[in-house]
């Protein structure tokens, strides 16, 4: 079996740093989301520690995501074939392959995920800074931030649940792509045909 490099070391490093920071921020965020979930704070260092570290985890998540954004923003632009792909996404979800255009390095669904996560992270960062310093931030901003922050977090989390499902269960081989950076030729041809031909020249 031959292998193709799918993600460089820099891509994998920024992805996993952001993922770890995201997970800490997400679980501690859930702890602060409702008193019923506050027990989660005990798992992640206790209430005061969670209050102190959640913003830092969020900040490092945003920085790592920023690295990914700089690297990928251009190739994440949706083209006309992506529009066709999106219109056929119901077929994709049912694992029907006929009628769906071949994807480049990222398919249109992944591109949508990228923009969804980038946008929600942007709003999370802005509102998060406001919530971080309640004694400094003006009340009017805080009143908006306490709504924007959980709302964007919810959008982001729903997206991440899908992302997690796709990578661990729905598309075998994608975890290896992000961990070791390599995929088999058959995998590349099956899931990202256009990218396979670009890379191999076949």
């Amino acid at each position, binding site marked *: 079996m031959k292998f193709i490099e799918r993600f460089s070391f820099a891509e994998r490093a920024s992805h996993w740093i952001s993922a770890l920071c995201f997970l800490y921020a997400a679980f501690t965020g859930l702890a602060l989301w409702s008193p019923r979930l506050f027990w989660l704070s005990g798992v992640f260092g206790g209430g005061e520690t969670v209050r102190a570290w959640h913003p830092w985890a969020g900040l490092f998540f945003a920085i790592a995501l920023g690295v990914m954004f700089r690297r990928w923003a251009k190739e994440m632009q949706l083209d006309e074939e992506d529009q066709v792909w999106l219109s056929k996404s119901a077929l994709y979800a049912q*694992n029907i392959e006929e009628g769906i255009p071949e994807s480049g390095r990222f398919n249109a669904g992944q591109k949508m995920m990228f923009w969804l996560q980038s946008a929600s992270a942007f709003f999370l960062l802005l509102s998060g800074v406001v919530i971080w310093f309640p004694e400094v931030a003006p009340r009017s901003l805080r009143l908006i931030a306490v709504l924007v922050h959980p709302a964007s977090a919810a959008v982001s989390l729903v997206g991440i*649940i899908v992302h997690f499902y796709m990578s661990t269960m729905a598309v075998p081989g994608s975890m290896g792509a992000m961990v070791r950076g390599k995929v088999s030729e058959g995998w590349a041809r099956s899931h990202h045909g256009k990218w396979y031909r670009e890379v191999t020249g076949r």
Partner: protein
Amino acid sequence: MPATTVAKLIDTSLCIGCKACEVACQEWNEQEFTLGVFNNTYQTLPDLAPNFWNLIKFNEQVEDGANSWLMAKYQCMHCADPGCLKACPAPGAIVQLPNGIVDFRQENCIGCGYCITGCPFDVPRLSPTTKKVYKCSLCSDRVGAGMTPACIRTCPTNCLTFGSRTDLVELAAQRTEELKADGFQDAGVYDGPGVGGTNVLYVLKHASAPEKYGLPKDPRIPWTVSLWKGPLKWVANAAFLGTAVGALLHYLKFGPKETHDDEVH
């Protein structure tokens, strides 16, 4: 026997601005006074502080061509529907006692400051040194021992009265009538109906303009806080669960995507 809801009545028309209540509060609660800035008023500090829970606001007015003060004691209002409690993520950090007192328990506080945003009266203050939030406890320790809150115990003019809320609502109505008989037609009671009623009641000479006293006109829990802690929470929880269950069902129905002919080429 259900606990009686306790209350504090502040008859602003009787306040002489002696600040004895401020001192009593500081002493009983063992607060160290931190000097503020002098900004050309008789007011002790510009605002409440983590170690200063009770402030007489010296609101300067020009009435009938003469300068005057509208004194208003400013502290936690002990709302029946407390915005601080609604916003607080840490169980037990803010408690509403059966007698209506809203008390902060610093040992459970994580210092997020959400209560500051949730409070319609902008009362809680975050200490930069302890990273905990503080405010008037209506001397819950004294009240629990059958005593009167320190500020009320020390007030020399009967501007402050402590008792059951029912009794004080009656007294407030009576004082309002007396003020009206004295020619203050605008006199009235300020008790925050928008937050389910407050357990700190004011008698104001100018009840139609509480902002003259530094009090919000129609105090309510901010709608963004209500939306965040109400509908948004349920929509988001449903979305989390729905997505996770949906993913599981999807896998059961369609299974994983297949990779073709890895061995052929």
